[in-house]
């Protein structure tokens, strides 16, 4: 054996040397992203939001009310080696959306981003889930639903899109359509249509990455695909600027937990007999700071999160289930020693996150497949 090993070692040495010399020159970069976008800090209500999806590439700047959008010079950081036209720092008139094209270093790929700069438009407070559009969920032809809300001041202008984990689920779902996704628009709402959230199995692909199920979820904020596998708790970014003082959250829901509660153990699902899945519906009113622009799966309900001002949430009995449409009306419980600064309120420093899920531990990939939550006529009640 020893002499075989010696022969092996010598041959490995020579072949590794030979193989290394076979490595070709580094190919030029094929990627063409806007990695970050900025305007001078004092002009912005909050950091720029970049959306990078199969059908939509956009950058949105929300500027303070005194800012003149007709002459702004945003700066962009792009993939190393790529080029952007027009150049970063060009002064442009953002009364209408402006386009920038990023081309990859190897010249074979490009993306056109639509860049918007606008004043903030407070979000609507009532949600009927009547407006959903069907969008691509992957490059295989899979499609999923996306709920859109319109501006209270102009009902033709969409100013908020509900986020969900659908784009992440899309990776596992091939060509299938919206009704197979964890989050979809459903019929038989209290009035018209409603939001449907169902915990699904992610099949072979989900098992490959150690995420065997996906809870239906719907929230105000953004789903960061980049961290979908890496740091799933941080992929769900909750919250957006809020200009009112919330006192209650009310609406209608119905929930039926799935049959078998499964827990994630060592990248696989293991049944937990006797345990029953729960849904969750809650809203969190918090203060945005430089280190906490959004809340995420790690801290959105944490008792020791210093930025949280008030939380409204279904109680345990309500989370366990409701066979038929049931009305709920929960008040925002304000945390002790939290006072509101009127100036911060006016400048959009405070934010609201509304979160719904069909499996309360879905963020940890535990729950019952088939748990189904339906929500309709949701309203945030404010002073």
């Amino acid at each position: 054996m020893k002499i075989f090993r010696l022969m092996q070692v010598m041959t490995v040495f020579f072949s590794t040397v030979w193989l290394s010399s076979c490595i070709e020159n580094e190919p030029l970069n094929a990627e063409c992203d806007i990695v970050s976008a900025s305007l001078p800090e004092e002009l912005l209500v909050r950091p720029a939001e970049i959306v990078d999806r199969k059908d939509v590439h956009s950058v949105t700047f929300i500027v303070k009310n005194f800012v003149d959008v007709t002459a702004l010079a945003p700066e962009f950081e792009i993939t190393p080696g790529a080029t952007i036209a027009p150049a970063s720092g060009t002064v442009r008139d953002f009364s209408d959306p402006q386009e920038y094209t990023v081309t990859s270093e190897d010249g074979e790929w490009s993306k056109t981003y639509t860049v918007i700069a606008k004043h903030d438009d407070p979000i609507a407070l009532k949600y009927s889930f009547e407006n959903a559009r069907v969008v691509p969920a992957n490059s295989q032809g899979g499609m999923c639903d996306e709920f859109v809300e319109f501006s209270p001041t102009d009902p033709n202008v969409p100013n908020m899109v509900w986020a969900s984990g659908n784009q992440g689920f899309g990776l596992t779902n091939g060509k299938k359509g919206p009704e197979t996704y964890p989050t979809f628009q459903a019929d038989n709402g209290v009035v018209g249509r409603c939001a449907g959230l169902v915990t699904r199995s992610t099949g072979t692909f989900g098992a490959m990455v150690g995420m065997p199920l996906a809870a239906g979820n719907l929230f105000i904020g953004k789903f960061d695909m980049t961290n979908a596998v890496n740091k799933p708790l941080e992929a769900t970014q909750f919250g957006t600027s809020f200009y009112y003082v919330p006192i209650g959250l009310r609406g209608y829901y119905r929930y039926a937990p799935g049959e078998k509660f499964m827990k994630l153990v060592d990248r696989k699902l293991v049944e937990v007999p006797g345990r029953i899945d729960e849904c969750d519906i809650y809203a969190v009113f918090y203060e945005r700071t430089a280190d906490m622009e959004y809340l995420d799966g790690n801290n959105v309900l944490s008792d020791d999160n210093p930025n949280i001002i008030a939380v409204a949430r279904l109680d345990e009995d309500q989370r366990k289930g409701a066979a038929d449409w049931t009305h709920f009306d929960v008040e925002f419980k304000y945390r002790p020693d939290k006072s509101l600064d009127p100036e911060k309120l006016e400048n959009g420093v405070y934010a609201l996150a509304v979160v719904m899920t069909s499996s309360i531990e879905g963020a940890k990939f535990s729950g019952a497949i088939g748990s189904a939550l339906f929500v309709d006529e949701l309203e945030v009640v404010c002073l």
Partner: protein
Amino acid sequence: MNIKRYIIGALAVAFGFVGATAQVDRSLAVIKAMLHGFEYEVYAGTNIGGASPLPLPAEIREINSYSPELNLQIGATVTKWMDVQKKWGLSLGVRLETKGMETKAAVKNYGMAIIQDGATVSGRWTGMVQTRYHSQQLVFPLTAVFKAHKRLKVHAGPYVAFAFSNDFDGYVYDGYLREGDPTGPKISFEGDSRANYDFGDNLRHFQWGMQGGVTWTAYKHLLVNANLAWGCNDIFESSFKTVTFNLYPIYLNVGFGYLF
């Protein structure tokens, strides 16, 4: 020498039933003449190599680690010398061997499409790929032999192999996937995050290739072998599209043999 006797004996039994005693005597003589000029060898050795794309695509940036695994082989060869001086001959062999390897490679913009249950995840992976290939095979080489020197034989020829146990699996880690094409959504895999793959079911059971090598006679009965076996067909079935380039098994066998 015992083997010769047994073979002669078996052949005699097979042929001997035809004809009378005199014919049996003559058959035996014929058989003896036929069996003159055969050499028998058994050998054991080890395989070092791997399943490699040729040439190495530009997407492969670095081979970070390579482990050949302990790939053992045992086999036997029969050589028939064609001429009196025993300079030229023909060898037929059989060997049982393991071809294996484990590699870690860094890749950039490496196209992949994984197809499972009718659904596809495809895109470009930039990051680390760990691969393990393990195949147990029955190989039949047929080679021409040239005795270059009293102690040195050179041989070359084709082989066919039947893989009866096949594994090809691994995982990707420490990198990111661009879904669809390089402009698609970027999904990071850091720390412990990884995606496992297993393509063992898509490996071919039948391989063929060319081999060539030398055998040095150290002592009257002890041989030292070195042989390069170069696969000529992809280790994967042609219907398998996930790995976009062909992987050829290229292995160096080294070992010792016993010449009867």
